[in-house]
């Protein structure tokens, strides 16, 4: 075993986003299928009945292009659907209508703080039915069949599991910002399949395969070589936490195989949550011949520059752009900027309030984050309340001095505790005083005066 050899992981992601259109992708059945009676949201089209034909949902392709734009892709002016053939009980027609060589969007990138990740393509396809297993049988519900799915494929630009998790979280927020999907891992409206391979990095300096962070210089040196010649896909991952576990497990598993001088098998593996490990799937592993050909039932699509521009206009300021603006222009803390930008509604509310009180961005951020003021009121009201809070309360020192004497005399034990080192004991007394002062006192001042009084 050569301890000098070390491995650089190359990780790519395939993400599926279920669009929250009202109708399905190719028919008018409701796309809101979750938890409905089985096979009650179906029609001849999504059931794949003889003679049924698909007609595409316009909203679905507009939203797909919106996603493409938000990921900085080039939107293709012409596009089409293709048939992808394979047999599986949840695939009603024996083929899935998807996109092969003319996807809606290509060559994008997502910039996150200091890193940049390539997006190979964004395309539109239809979802399959759902299988459940019951004893010796498999049961099929086609309510989900035909729901629109956007598929996002990244370049293998990730080199550790943390990067992947951060990216997925960012992507989830972007998708939610666009309002095109709930992107909910638990409900299946966001699904992911990472693919992982390792490249041998032969360098004189040692590299700990378990250390997940690479320096930029090391990465670019490796990238200029060829990518690894095999790829392992992992399916059946239901949360960001599990993606991280699966990737970390795979990196170790593949490194062990490589150390033996062998190449990991190119395959699709499943992930076991209980074992926190990936496993080989027993199904036949021959390369699928999907026999793609252009979908003859659906004429091609063509969009003008103006139409594409119109769709691009609908992309709002995205989370990373907000974070940049908040930290650079509004000068609020990065941590706070990240929290506020997590929800478009919150961020836009913040923007509205800050517009009214531009000098107080950090303060507004604090108030929102710590929930000091409710955000279900109009921004003007929030601003007014914020202003009131920040105005120091004038404390009547005469009354305060009287009350301090009263409180000290009535609580000798607490004063003793405080004097003997239990400094937190003072908070009880501050609380009493605040009540006595009926809010007409500034908490800071009260504490200061109390401490002074006790010391004397």
């Amino acid at each position, binding site marked *: 075993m050569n301890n000098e050899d070390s491995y650089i992981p190359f990780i790519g992601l395939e993400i599926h986003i279920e669009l929250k259109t009202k109708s399905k992708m190719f028919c008018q059945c409701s796309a809101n299928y979750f938890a409905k009676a089985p096979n009650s949201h179906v029609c001849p089209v999504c059931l*794949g009945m*003889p*003679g*049924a*034909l698909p007609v595409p949902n316009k909203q679905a392709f507009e939203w797909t292009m919106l996603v493409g734009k938000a990921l900085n892709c080039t939107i293709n002016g012409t596009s089409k659907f293709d048939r992808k*053939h394979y047999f599986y009980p949840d695939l009603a027609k024996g083929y899935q209508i998807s996109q092969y060589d003319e996807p809606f969007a290509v060559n994008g990138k997502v910039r996150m703080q200091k890193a940049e990740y390539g997006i190979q393509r964004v395309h539109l396809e239809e979802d399959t039915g759902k299988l459940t297993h019951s004893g010796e049988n498999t049961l099929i519900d086609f309510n989900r069949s035909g729901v629109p799915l956007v598929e996002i494929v990244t370049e293998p630009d990730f080199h550790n599991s943390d990067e992947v998790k951060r990216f997925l979280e960012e992507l989830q927020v972007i998708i939610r910002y666009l309002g095109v999907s709930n992107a909910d891992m638990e409900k299946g409206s966001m699904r992911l399949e990472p693919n992982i391979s390792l490249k041998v990095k032969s360098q004189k300096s040692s590299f700990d395969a378990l250390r997940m962070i690479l320096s930029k210089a090391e990465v670019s040196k490796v990238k200029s070589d060829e990518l690894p010649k095999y790829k392992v896909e992992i399916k059946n991952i239901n949360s960001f936490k599990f993606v991280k576990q699966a990737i970390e497990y795979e990196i170790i598993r593949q490194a062990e195989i490589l150390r033996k001088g062998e190449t990991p098998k190119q395959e699709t593996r499943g992930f076991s949550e209980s074992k926190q490990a990936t496993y080989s799937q027993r199904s036949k592993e021959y390369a699928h011949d999907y*026999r*793609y*050909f252009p979908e003859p*039932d659906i004429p091609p699509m063509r969009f003008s520059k103006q139409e594409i521009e119109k769709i691009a206009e609908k992309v709002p300021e995205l989370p990373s752009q907000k974070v940049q603006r908040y930290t650079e222009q509004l000068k609020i803390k990065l941590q706070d900027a990240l929290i506020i930008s997590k929800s478009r509604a919150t961020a836009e509310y913040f923007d509205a309030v800050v517009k009214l009180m531009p000098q107080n961005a950090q303060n507004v951020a604090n108030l929102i984050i710590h929930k000091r003021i409710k955000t279900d009121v109009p921004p003007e009201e929030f601003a007014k309340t914020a202003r009131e809070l920040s105005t120091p309360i004038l404390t009547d020192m005469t009354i305060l001095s009287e009350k301090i004497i009263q409180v000290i005399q009535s609580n000798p034990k607490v004063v003793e505790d405080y004097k003997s080192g239990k400094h937190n004991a003072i908070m009880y007394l501050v609380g009493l005083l605040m009540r006595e002062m009926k809010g007409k006192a500034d908490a800071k001042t009260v504490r200061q005066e109390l401490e002074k009084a006790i010391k004397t």
Partner: protein
Amino acid sequence: MSIFGKSIVELIRLVQEKEISRKELFDYFKRRITKYNPNLNAFLTLAEYQEDTNHGELLGIPLAIKDNFCTKGIRTTASSKVLDNFIPPYESTVTQKLLNQGASILGKTNMDAWAHGNSTETSDYGPTKNPWNTDRSPGGSSGGSAAAISAYLSPAAIGSETAGSIRQPASWCGTVGIKPTYGRVSRYGVIAMGSSLDSPGPLTLTVEDAAFLLKVLAGNDPYDATSSDIPVQDYPSIMTQKKKFTIGFSDEYFDGVNEEIKAKIMEALDVFRRLGHKTKKIKLIPPKYAISVYTILQRAEVSSNLARYDGIRFGNDRRSFGEEAKRRLMFGAYTLSYGYYDAYYKKAQKVRTLIVEDFKRVFSEVDVIVAPTCPITALKLGEFKKYPFFGEIMDVLNEPGAVAGLPAINIPVGLDSVNLPIGLQIMGNYFDEGSILNLAHQFEKETEFFGIIKKGLEKYKDE
């Protein structure tokens, strides 16, 4: 008052004038079916009489429907054991339109299984016999529909054509049959064979009936993304306009054609000339290339369209596929498979472009093209096995037009020496069904098709 041999237009008048009721008409054909169908095997499934509340233009006219149209509540098999027990829970657009106009459905007619063929002999329910000579095939794949009207078991029928499946059985059974422009009639509810080729259309005993039915069937359908939004012409009125055409005919379309057929086509051209039309020799890409283009594209689409039959949601599983279906499934898979797609499928699509452009060029010189419909007349049952890809070879003269998506109509123009009908086809430009119906009607008025249709019905007269 005799019903026998009357056209749809005539029958509608009888019903309108209350000389016969809708139900009496239905029962009349039912009786004839009971008498003749056991021998001819034109119908696979018979429907019950339904009262009509629509009172549309079709006033209860009974029609025979090819068994690849999904008819709600009525067994639909595409003549394959795979769908032996399939009862569609929905109606095809074509049959819905007919029902909306008050038509009655008499039953579902036999066809080549999955429309794979030209003789109705690949049906899993036995072949249909040609009413002209029951040792012979009626052609296919709409053989049941053609035979049904040729023996007057129905006054008209609905069929479908991918390449030849309306024209060729119409030719072999001596009837009128029109294949509309691809996209003129909705495919929603038609069990798919070749998605970029399938065209539903009527088979009738008169050109007027074809014009009339086509007008009912044609039009844009929001459930079929390939259906055209070009407005539907008023075919019955265009049909009777005084028009003169420049008629093209091509030597390439006479190559390999039976001498007797050639002779009848040439005689028909004389008739056209007599009527004042110009005829012009044109050059077209030899049809043999279209056989390859068609075979590759159609079988590829077939292999894909039949992928949904897994026996889970409906029908029986794939072990019930017949020989011809299996052959086409595998051939189609081959031409789409990795490494072969460019050489076959993509190349065929390119040659398709050449064919489309070839016709475009020709239609700038002529208005319509006339040719034989089929190189031979009806074959004896069983002979089709001699040919490796029988269906496609038999349709050589129909495939170029079909691949390009053009409309065409078959009319009977003679009988051969063994009294089998000879058909002539008139091909038109895109969405110019009006012209081909018009010219066909002029021929019909002038010749009454030489009494061919009447002669064919003789054997099946009411006693």
